């Protein structure tokens, strides 16, 4: 009989968790932890830190269950908490990260390297972005959020999302310029990546 019932919505789980049903909160963890871990990994780059961020996010969400009014989706709310936690992390790690990034070349390996190198270059380029650009790139390109969702997560107007995303993409193209402006295998000596 229970199998015929549709699974509870996130909002229903939040309401049950509010009334003390910890199992419902576990269900929310099951549903959203992978997405949040992906977001955290792309924002901070280290697995241990990402796990800490996700844990802090759920702890914060649990504490804030009563304050959450359901105006935004649970996914948006959790992402919002995680991005805020990540901002604290940036402050702590800023100096260390800046030193590391100064030491690494911005121009990465040329196209044609292994797929693993390509992925590493992209991941590093994302981490090299300034936090506001990194956040918006990750939310849009990796998490697939709409502009409205991003605006809700970052608490900025939609117009800011559009302009920031434009600048973030430009910056990322610079960091990955070898993949945009370098010689492409079998593409002759064209300088611009705009060629069809």
């Amino acid at each position, binding site marked *: 009989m229970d199998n015929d019932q549709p699974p509870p919505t996130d909002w229903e789980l939040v309401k049950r968790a509010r009334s003390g049903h910890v199992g419902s909160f576990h269900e929310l*963890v099951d549903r959203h932890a992978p997405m949040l871990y992906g977001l955290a990994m792309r924002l901070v780059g280290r697995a241990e830190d990402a796990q800490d961020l*996700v844990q802090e996010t759920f*702890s914060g969400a*649990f504490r804030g*269950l009563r304050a959450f009014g359901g105006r935004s989706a649970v996914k948006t709310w959790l992402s919002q908490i995680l991005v805020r936690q990540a901002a604290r992390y940036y402050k702590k790690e800023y100096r260390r990260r800046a030193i590391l990034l100064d030491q690494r070349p911005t121009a990465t390996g040329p196209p044609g390297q292994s797929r693993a190198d390509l*992925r590493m270059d*992209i*991941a590093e380029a994302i981490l090299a972005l300034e936090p506001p650009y990194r956040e918006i790139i990750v939310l849009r390109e990796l998490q697939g959020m709409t502009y409205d969702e991003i605006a809700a997560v970052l608490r900025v107007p939609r117009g800011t999302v559009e302009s920031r995303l434009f600048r973030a993409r430009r910056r990322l193209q610079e960091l990955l310029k070898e993949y945009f402006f370098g010689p492409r295998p079998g593409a002759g000596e064209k300088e611009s990546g*705009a060629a069809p």
Partner: protein
Amino acid sequence: MRECEQISRVSAYHDGEMPPAERAEFRQHLSQCVSCAAELERLERLTALLSSLPPPATPPWMLDRLYRAVDLRPVHVLRRMAEALSAVAAVILIACLAGLAMRSSSQASAGAMPVWESRALNQQSEESTFGGREELVAQWMAQDLSGKDGL
């Protein structure tokens, strides 16, 4: 190549975030603007690059760690437990007070006799006294009658 003034709108077009009418109009613009067309291609290439990144695999132990973290920091569960403990404490307190009251009353009964008890006892003694009198009167009456018979 000089950039078009509308180049920042390419992102919204690329992401499917333009209203249909605006999108149709911008598609027209793209067919005539080399700068915006080149930007669109770069964006498509960037998105293709980024999509080659697989989502980070969640460590298998992480969910258990998250459950534990929530179970160990259950703020409102703690509050509920505190409420339940308060209720239990109140019951224990009431039981203790009731016990104390009963104990003090039994101690009091051992010292000073309650009024009803003394009255009951008095009545009992009165009754026994009266009963004794009855017996005595009956005895006297019997002796009297037998004396008369004897006279």
